């Protein structure tokens, strides 16, 4: 589904350098977040072999995050804008929330989805004889294929068979669908929230009128706050503004 939407949205996403740079920075944030969750998995798993696998995966994600961020910065520079900075994503604490098996299922689905989406982008640039951007996405796809493969193998091993592996993937698919639904709802609610808050801000005008008299800005040394009990203070409160 993501790949289909990506195909449809390609002309919009890549036509504008500004939008493309922002999209790439969002990818770098997603990769950075993946890295954080994988480092957490490495720390929490009990198996040294899985720890090593998660660490190598985390390093790939870190490299991808840097690549996307650098590409975004390059596009921004070319259009005379400053970079969007370094990615510093939130973590979803996925390993803790899902447990190792389901975490692997989630990562596997994420890597598969990502790979398909990046293939669409790669093909888009290939059709336009843009070798550089095609090679960029090719490099990332190679890693995603490897990630898809090892997570699949580990999931089979932990789940204890093909049927169990499919069951885990189905459960995670359901969980992801619920989160996507909530994310869409949040998108709408956020817009309503911001519009309401801007309207509410207008209502602050009367409060703003007399705040200067009630709580003026104080300059210089001020009396200590109530929590502290001064036994002496030769500091004079500065004249009020």
């Amino acid at each position, binding site marked *: 589904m993501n790949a289909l939407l990506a195909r449809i949205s390609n002309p919009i996403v890549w036509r504008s350098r500004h939008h493309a740079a922002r999209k790439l920075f969002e990818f770098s944030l997603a990769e950075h977040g993946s*890295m*954080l969750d994988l*480092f*957490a998995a*490495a*720390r929490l798993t009990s198996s*040294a*072999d899985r*720890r*090593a696998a998660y*660490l*190598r995966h*985390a*390093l790939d994600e*870190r*490299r991808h995050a840097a690549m996307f961020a650098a590409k975004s*910065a390059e596009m921004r*520079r070319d259009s005379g804008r*400053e*970079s969007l*900075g*370094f990615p*510093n*994503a*939130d*973590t979803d604490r996925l390993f803790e929330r899902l447990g190792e098996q389901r975490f692997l299922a989630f990562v596997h689905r994420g890597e598969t989805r990502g790979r398909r989406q990046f293939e669409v982008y790669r093909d888009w640039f290939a059709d336009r004889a843009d070798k550089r951007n095609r090679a960029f996405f090719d490099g990332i796809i190679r890693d995603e294929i490897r990630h898809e493969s090892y997570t699949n193998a580990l999931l089979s091993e932990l789940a204890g068979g093909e049927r169990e592996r499919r069951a885990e993937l189905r459960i995670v698919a359901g969980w992801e669908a619920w989160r996507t639904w909530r994310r869409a709802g949040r998108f709408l609610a956020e817009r309503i*929230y*911001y519009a309401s*808050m*801007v309207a*509410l*801000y207008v209502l*602050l*005008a009367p*409060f*703003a009128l007399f*705040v*200067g008299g009630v*709580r003026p*800005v*104080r*300059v*210089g*040394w*001020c*009396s*200590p*706050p109530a*929590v*502290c*009990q*001064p*036994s*002496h*203070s*030769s*500091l*004079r409160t*500065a004249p009020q503004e």
Partner: protein
Amino acid sequence: MTAVLGISALYHDAAAALVVDGEVVAAIQQERLSRRKNDASLPKDAALACLSLAGLSATDLAAVVFYEDPFARLDRVLLSTLRSFPRAWRQFPHAIRSQIGSKVWVLDNLAFTLGISRNRVSTVAHHQSHAASAFFASAYDEAAVLTIDGVGESDTTGLWMGKGSSLECLGTIEFPHSLGLLYAALTAYLGFEVNEGEFKVMGLAAFGAPKYTQEFSKLIKIREDGSFELSLSYFAFHTDVDLGFNAKLEELLGPRRPRGKPWDLQSSPEDRRYADIAATLQRFTEDAIVALAKAAKRLTSSEFLCMAGGVALNCVANARVVQESGFKNVFVQPAAGDAGGALGAAYLGYIQATGKRPARMRSALLGPSISNDKARNTAAALGLKYTEPSDIFDEVAKLVLDDKIVALARGRVEWGPRALGSRSLLASPKQAEMRDRMNRAVKRREPFRPFAPAVLRSEAHKWFDHWNNDLSPYMTGLAIVKPECRAQIAATTHVDGTARIQTVDEDSSPDLCKLLQVMKQRNEAPIMLNTSLNGNGEPIVCDECDALAFFLSHPIDALVLEDILLQRTSS
């Protein structure tokens, strides 16, 4: 047993610190565990790690103390929203979402997260926690305390008197008059990230000259009583939290530097101009801090001064305070920023519970340690070959003398932003090329960034002047490299002849002490280049996984992981 957990969170550098029967038994910044730089989220991992290190569970805690009052903070946010009406309309939804969406419920969330009764969770004031983190960690029975940061609930600066187990506030300076926000605004002006770039601005300042004194005199005035006043018309703390300044400042100083643009101080006159602005900012900040310190001396007549708050990490300013303020000695606790608030909160909770003063901080090595077994297993699973030398310090000394870069991850993680020999990158300080290699290839950061020397305390006098104070064990001060020695430790001598020195002894950093002693035994100067073990934009390495990941992805020559040694050639 009285165990108190202190927590700082939600603004910068979340952390947890555990004081048990008056001793700091653990203190950890959340970013070290989450691997998210400057992680400000509720430090669940850090809190659990502290408890685990002490062998305790949350139900054993007498109290959990949060480092600031969320209601007082909300009061100030609402107030500054009203004061800046109608300019702050864009920021208003974000500010309210942040406060009402999460921050006012922090004490409830702490109780839920730790699984303890809400009655055991309390708060202290922000600057009070800073002051406590410095004074009670010091060895002073009595001292003046200065706390200087961006802003707490509503104070930006605090002056305190510490005596025994009591801490008394003598006065404050209120938002928006803030040295921390001034520095942050100019950090953003110079194209750096706020709360990360301030150290870079400090390093950049040495490459410029304070030529913009006339312009900066319009931005900040130092008053006769030692306080200061900002000209608020140049700043936008309320309305633009990313930049903190407005068009009027750009009219005064020229256009701001674009973010992410590579620096070229050799051939770009524009970049040299920005270095001059950094130098002027640094000069004015130092003058303001020295004025505050002199006021503290006048008011308290104390022999000693403690400092805390993010601005107290400005080691260049601290060196001037030592020289000029009249105090016999000055102490800055290594995690002087918001993370340190967790420690201060724990100290205050302990005093509240027992009435006794906690013990001073003897070492900053307060985080989790490395497991040899986990190191071996993970290295083997990654296909990395390692050895277990009988004398690891001798091996490391040999490598460093051979101009190799060695990562050292041994013992407990340091508390605070400086690596003090527990999670360090070590190299020879002799050649300037080592500094360039470290900046370019390993740390991947701006070329003007300096590196610090770690030196055996007993030998420091041979190489440095102005080092002998309570700042040097924790790298919170500055020394002057003797002119005749500068060429011999070129990699750790900054362009102005200074060095952010770390003096090393058995108590403060046992492993680094052993290493430097080995150097001395080999008739070499007991000095090493010591920089933090982390890549660009990453927190300092914490455990085996982080260290091995660093080794795999950065061109260093060797990694010491507790008792095992990995070398690049044999990997």
